[in-house]
Structures are given as C-alpha cells and as structure tokens.
C-alpha cells in the first residue's frame, strides 16, 4: 500500500508546508525571495542562488508530462496491492518539476506532452499531491 510509504516518509521542517498545503488542496512548493525561482524538493536554501530566504509558495499545479512509467511489479511486498500505478514527471508552468502519481478512474493512458493538473489523494492522516490528465 502506498499509504504506508506516505506515512513512513522522512519528515523535515522545510517539507512540512508541502504536506500541510496538500491537506488544504494546494500544491505548496518553495520560492526564493532573492532570485524568485521555485524549487522542489524544498531545502534550507535556494538551489539556484544559495539564498536562505526561501518561502513556501502556492504553485499553479498545471503542467506537462515530460516522462512517465507504469509500475507493474511490486518491488517491495507492501506494494503488492498497489500495482499497477503510473508515475509522471511533470514540468509545471513555473519551470519546476514534480514526480507524482497519476490518478484516474483506472490507470489512465498517458503520453509525453499531455497536460496535467494537480489533484489530491487522501491517504489515512495524510494527503498526497497527485496529478490527473486535463480534459480539454
């Protein structure tokens, strides 16, 4: 079950806004107060310019699939019930990338270049940001 992976994740102070934001159905990444760029995963300093003035920032949640993979084999026993699942590497409009599950009624057909938007999946006490295909 993916829920166990989410529950047992590492936790960091700079990461907390991402998970708190997800509970409010917002994709919260990190913006640098000095150079203005977004980054993910969040860090104690900007990975572009080194500034310490990094702050949580709500991202559009809209982007494009730059690659994907369908995981068909449970590589650890607790994922036996989770396969198959699709992971997408998304380039958001803000020029920052996110790796996430792609959700849909079933495992959806996806192609590189498809437009996606953030969605949120409740997993026990946590909410996991995921993506879904945009219907247009």
């Amino acid at each position: 079950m993916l829920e166990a992976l989410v529950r047992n994740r590492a936790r960091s102070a700079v990461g907390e806004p991402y998970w708190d934001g997800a509970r409010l159905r917002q994709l919260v990444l990190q913006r640098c107060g000095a150079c203005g760029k977004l980054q993910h995963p969040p860090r104690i300093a900007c990975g572009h310019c080194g500034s310490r003035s990094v702050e949580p920032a709500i991202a559009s949640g809209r982007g494009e699939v730059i690659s994907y993979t369908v995981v068909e084999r449970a590589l650890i026993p607790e994922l036996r019930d989770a396969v198959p699942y699709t992971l997408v590497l998304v380039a958001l409009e803000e020029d920052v990338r996110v790796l996430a599950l792609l959700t849909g009624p079933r495992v959806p057909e996806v192609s590189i270049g498809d437009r996606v938007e953030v969605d949120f999946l409740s997993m026990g006490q946590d909410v996991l940001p995921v993506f879904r295909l945009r219907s247009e």
Partner: protein
Amino acid sequence: MSSPAIVGAYDGTADAGGASCLELAADAALCAIADAGLGLDTVDAVMAVHSWEEPSMMFASHLADYLGLRPSLVETAAFGGASPVMMVGRAAQALSEGRCDVVVLAASSNRASGLGRDAAIRGLRDVLDPEFEAPTGAFIPTLYALAAQRHVHDYGTTREQLAAVAATQRAYASLHPSAVQRTPLSIEEVLAAPIVSSPLSVRDCCLITDFRGALVLTRAEHVASARLPPVWVVGYGEAHRPITATAPDVELTSRGAQISGTQALTASGLTIDDIDFAELYDSFTITVLITLEDLGFCRRGEAGPLALDGAFAVGGELPVNTNGGMLSYRTGGMSHLIEAVAQLRGSPAGARVESPSVGLVHGIGGVFSTHATVILSNEDVSAC
C-alpha cells in the same frame, strides 16, 4: 610523465558464502595483491567501496587494519555504482602525485546472500529523496524508466532495441565460465518477461548478486616488479549530476557521461575512434544506450538500432560489456574494470576482443548521478 598502471586484478565468485563485506573485501584485496606478484608489505594505500549493506563508518580504514597494513593513504568511496571507477581515478592521481607507491582498491557486497533481494531493493531506495520521492512509490528502476520512456519518445527507440542490449550481453555471459546467468536469452524472451516499470522488463534490469573484486595499481617505476605486464591508466574524468529526479536542468536522455568521457579522452590524448572495446555501467539496458550516445560512440538515437544490428556483440564494431556486465555476469561495477584488464592482458576468461590496445570503462552512481570514465591501455600512450 608516464601513467600509473594496474598490475593486479581479481574478481571473486558471486556468492559470499556467509562472509561479511569486510571479509570479502580483504579476500579480494589479498587475491589481487597475489595476482600482482607483490608482497602485502609493499601496499601503502588502501581504498574500498563503502558497504551500505553492513554500514561502517570507516570501511576502508577497517580494511587496512584487517589486512595488518599501516598505509599512508586510505579512502572509502561512496559514489554508488561509480565508486570502483572513481577509486581508480583517485588512486591514479595519488600515485602521480607521489603520495603512495602501491594502491589496493576493493569492492565487495553480500547483498544477495546477506541482505536478500527485498532488503537490497529497499536499501538501494536510499538514493531517492526520502520525503518527496520515496512516498510516490518510485524505485530506482522507475527513475531509469523515466529516462527510457523519454528516449523512446524523442528518438523512436524500441523495446526490441533495449532487449537487444540484454540479449547481446547474455551471449557474452554464456561464454564466460563464472557468469551468474549463462543460459542464452533471446530478444523475444526479454520482450515476454514481466514489466517492472514500463518500458523496462525484468530482463532490462541488472542482477542483484554478491560480489568481491580488487585491483592493484602502482607507479611506472614499480611496474617491472609486478608479475604481469601493466595496464596503464591513460585518462580519467568524472562528473557529478543531480541525484534528485526533479532537478530542473536534467535532460532526461543525456546525462553526464559526455562530461566525464570528454575529460578522460582529453587526458589520454586519444579520440573515441581509438577505443577498441567498452565496459559500461549497465544497471538497466537504457543505461547502456544513453551512455554510448553520451560518450560519443554514436549520435543520439543511434545506439538502439546499432544494438539491434549487433554492433556491440561478439565480433561487432565495438564490443560492449564483454563478460555479460551487470545484466548477466554480476552486479557492482568492479567487474567492468577487471574485465577490461583481462581483455588488455589478452587473457579474458570468456569472449576475446581481437588484439585490443585501448578500453574504456564507465561507472554510474545514483540515477545517472555520478559519472566516472577511465581509459585503459596496454601501451603507455601518454608517455609516447
């Protein structure tokens, strides 16, 4: 100035037989020193790959102590699969600077027999960001699959072409008496194997095995005291690229071997056309194709069709992974170096490259994250 040289090599069986990583490393080191024909007391530098299987704060220091050595230089390498090649680069540099005379470097693992497959896969997940990547259900094969899928999209690379890499390497392994997987494998069988993470099937993934191997390097002044002719380290380069899958500046189908490969070739004064064979890190079939293209053996998108045409096979234009590599021989990356030495000595245990004089070995750690390229030759080209 003449180059440092490899004068001893040893590749142990892929079965730890209950031994610890430290015991395996010590065994490999002693065997490589014996292969060199040098006394243990001549060794004044010890390098070893960090054993994440049995975490040790100072692994190479423990190895030196275990061997009863009081060396002037010790280094533990923790660069994932690039560690063996990176140790060769660091050993060559230390020898060139005169900081030591004889280096033994070892890599060992009991991940298959000690940890077991499930725990090994879990342990290797340590490469992923533990808060943002691991919870998505990503694994190392998943992240390499993202590169593969993009390669398929951008260049029309097919699953059949990826499968050709696995089948070609199995053909090499079937000729090697100590390869783990020796039963011939057809492209059709690779295609029919269960998908792990699309487009990669089980047969597109490297083996999880134990291993132990070591090399002995020395300076030109001392090669005459070795038992066998030297294999010279004529060029080395390395590159450090992102570990995070979401780094914004990563081109998914071109990763870092271009940087390390260019550095190594420049240092050697050779060109890519001078390379007679290559031993390339092959965590997955896609790893081989992207590395061939990044190193400049062919243009982007050409490696897949070339693999299918047999260009990298026994008797092909550029023999690649001539012992079967990590896909079929055994995992770890050290065997690539040892196989290159065997080919350049003219004494491979399996397939033989026709009178080689220059071989290239490339190591990769993480997910295309750390890169190291070394160029080896049985002639000291840099001294000419």
